[in-house]
């Protein structure tokens, strides 16, 4: 068969908006929350199994990438509860504050503390500062992906001259 001209569908798509695909949408809807859940699992399990804040964050980021391929950066903006930079700022603050908290006590910078208490019904609940630190990492990584998708991902497809130059 002969070579055909490319579809014109893409031509009037703007600002990272994608041509919808029913199949993709359905798939993303099925996977999005599950991927996020898995990322949370990786975050918490990381101390004992492969994973951790970074890997977990990237998996969560992948979930957002799924939203992006489905519906463009607008979809990501809808999905992310706060701007990516704020997410990252929060994560960085959390990680550093966790480390600095030790300074308030006796410990060295970034030395890990443990909080254990018995909660009725649940038994012993453990919270380590390493986990808080990892959560900070997680937030930073998710924030990074969100920032990328909402900035680079939101850009139109033509260079500046095309619209401003004489």
């Amino acid at each position, binding site marked *: 068969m002969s070579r055909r001209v490319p579809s014109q569908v893409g031509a009037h798509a703007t600002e990272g908006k994608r041509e919808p695909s029913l199949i993709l949408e359905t798939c993303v809807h099925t996977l999005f929350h599950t991927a996020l859940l898995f990322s949370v699992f990786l975050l918490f399990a990381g101390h*004992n*199994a*492969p994973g951790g804040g*970074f890997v977990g964050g990237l998996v969560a980021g992948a979930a957002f990438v799924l939203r992006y391929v489905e519906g463009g950066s607008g979809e990501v903006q809808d999905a992310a509860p706060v701007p990516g930079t704020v997410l990252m700022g929060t994560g960085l603050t959390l990680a550093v504050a966790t480390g600095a908290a030790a300074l308030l006590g006796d410990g060295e910078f970034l030395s890990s503390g443990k909080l254990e208490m018995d909660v009725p019904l649940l038994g012993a609940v453990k919270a380590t500062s390493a986990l808080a630190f990892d959560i900070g990492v997680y937030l930073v990584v998710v924030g*990074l992906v969100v920032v*990328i998708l909402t*900035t*680079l991902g939101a*850009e139109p497809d033509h*260079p*500046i*001259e095309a619209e401003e130059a004489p």
Partner: protein
Amino acid sequence: MIAVLALAVGVLYAVGTYLILQRKLTQIVIGLAIMGHGANLVLLMAGGRAGRAPFSGTGDAFADPLPQALALTAIVITFGVAAFLLALSYRSWLLRHDDEVEDDVEDRRIARRANARADAG
């Protein structure tokens, strides 16, 4: 010391070098990324022989965990910077329709002036 790994390292560095000597930022970024892979392999080789994944309490003959942690950090950092570099090349495209790394204007001007003087003198 595994020869094939060293071979891989060598090839990755060679290819990375070749690519970063090109003019397009895309190629340069790819070259740096490939070289980065090489560097991570170097770190891994620094840990010695292959071993079991380093999880406490499940036996012995573990792989050295420290280079793994270092490589992980290095991967992430390189990735972050490379991502920014890509954003730069996007901006470059926005301003110039290209991601070719231009020569420095002022440097060229001075070099031209030097040549012109030499011709005149």
